[in-house]
């Protein structure tokens, strides 16, 4: 193995005129991981329309050694083939021991492509990262439908590439409040290219983030019709929660995929999670491990969700929620 690799490179995904919060979490984690090792520097790479000035404020407190900034004009389509080329270029320039990427739609495409280019292993959807001496990264991720945690290491190749689900780490800048820490910026430009021709693009509502919500009401197949969604939407609004769902609801197209909790959806960490008519499949449970208080409402006392909930209300959600809603209004 080539030991000539050192430091951590973080891929900063651009979104909504700034850096995506999941990427900032990884940047903060990278700074934390390298604290013990004076040899390990933190690098960052980003590709998109943001200028260096636009980025400077967001990156000020983090202590990045070098930023690779690839300017690409923005366009409507979300399918790009470029990032892997650019991030690979940055890897060749700074030779990091570790590459961290947020497990977003984009990150999930990027990481395996980079793994093949670099001839190295990738661990997807990590929930824990630890840096050992020699900058050996111990990567923890769920497997077997989230029922088991696997500790994984990339023993024979570098860099060690890991993706991490958004919302797992704290995004706070380790040095925030202190003076802006200067970093070196390498500016490059690239043309935008999507591999296929975009025929039509229909934007929907601005995406809501269930990952960062403090209160969530989640609905499942216990909901009988699309029209009934409003009942749950209203209840969620009443208690200051956002509405999320199981895959049975997104499959029917009643809510968009950004609301889906679980293995193929989002992983959430609210203080309060109210589950309405959700059975508790292993795939759903994989997304709620970090919730603090879970209350499940289900007609079936033997539903597996009971063992994963703090409180279990055996009852019909159509009777129970209106009663609760009324009580809250009266108080």
């Amino acid at each position, binding site marked *: 193995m080539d030991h000539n690799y050192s430091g951590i490179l973080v891929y900063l995904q651009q979104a909504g005129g700034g850096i995506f919060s999941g990427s900032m979490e990884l940047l903060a984690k990278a700074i934390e991981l390298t604290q013990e090792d004076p040899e390990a520097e933190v690098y960052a790479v980003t590709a998109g329309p943001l200028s260096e000035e636009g980025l400077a404020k967001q990156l000020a407190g983090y202590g990045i050694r070098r930023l690779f900034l690839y300017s690409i004009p923005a366009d409507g389509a979300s399918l790009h083939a470029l990032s892997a080329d650019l991030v690979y270029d940055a890897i060749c320039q700074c030779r990091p021991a570790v590459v961290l990427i947020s497990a977003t739609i984009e990150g999930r495409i990027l990481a*395996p492509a980079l793994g093949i280019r670099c001839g190295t292993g990738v661990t997807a959807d990590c929930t824990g990262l630890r840096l050992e001496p020699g900058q050996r990264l111990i990567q923890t991720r769920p497997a077997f439908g989230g029922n088991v945690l696997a500790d994984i290491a*990339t023993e024979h*190749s570098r860099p060690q590439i890991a993706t991490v689900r958004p919302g797992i780490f704290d995004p706070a800048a380790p040095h925030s409040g202190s003076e802006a820490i200067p970093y070196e910026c390498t500016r490059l430009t690239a043309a935008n290219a999507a591999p*296929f021709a975009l025929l039509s693009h229909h934007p929907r509502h601005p995406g809501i983030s269930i990952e960062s919500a403090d209160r969530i009401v989640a609905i499942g197949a216990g909901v009988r019709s699309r029209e009934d969604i409003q009942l749950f939407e209203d209840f969620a609004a009443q208690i200051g929660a956002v509405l999320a769902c199981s895959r049975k609801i997104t499959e029917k197209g009643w809510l968009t995929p950004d609301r889906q909790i679980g293995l193929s959806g989002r992983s959430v960490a609210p203080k309060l999670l109210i589950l309405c008519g959700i059975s508790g499949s292993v795939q759903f449970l994989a997304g709620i491990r970090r919730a603090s208080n879970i209350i499940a409402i289900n007609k079936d006392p033997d539903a597996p969700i*009971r063992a994963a909930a703090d409180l279990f*209300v055996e009852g019909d959600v159509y009777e129970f929620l209106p009663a609760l809603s009324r009580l*809250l209004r009266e108080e």
Partner: protein
Amino acid sequence: MRILVCFKIVRDLDNVIDSDWDSERDPSFRIDYTRKILNDADQGVLEAALLISDREPGTEITAVTVTDDDGASFFTGLFAAGIGNVVRIAPEEDLTLRPAATAALLAQYAAETGPYDLILFGAQAPPGDSRQVPYAAAEMLQLPAIDRVRELMNSDGRITAVRETDTSLEEYELLAPAAIIMENPVHSYLRLPTLRERMKASGKTAELIQRSAPALPDAEILGFRPARIRRDGRMISPEEAPDLLADILKEL
């Protein structure tokens, strides 16, 4: 048109006895009593290939899987549904949680028997659910990839894909060859063959290829730990629940 569909036969994790997750032993040994199923995410992908073939007769569909399992009953079902050719690549090593090695075997098969116009994948499969195999295989084959595809359409030699992102629905015209990764497909189940189709398919067998996986540096598993969330599950009656919940909401 020539289509290659990559699919997987998996264990039904919903059938695992709860306590079996609470040990530190390698879980793959502990769940081998569960029934095998066609990976949920791949059903709609096989169906999408058949729908293309319905619209363009003469389309050649090959379904390929990497497994050390004989899987004969599944293969008959695939032949009966209309898949022309089923291939089982039997790896000489255990490829559990080794997505790059699995992708390499699929890519090698595609390269040897191609060119294919479309190579279709489901987004993920247990036990790893890492979503790496399709992207890694596309990268090895140097194919442009499109993911989160819900539906494929074809007419007059033109193929279009509807892709659903968090905030938009996009329609693309695809240029073959391409790798397509489907998720939440509009037609999510593989069609059920008639008894007659089943009888006709009963003599067909999958082609078996024995292969050693290329020595790719997949990340290595150091060990497993139980991860099941188990909480009190305290039962509260619907009568006392509204008051209790109202209190909790005030507290949090």
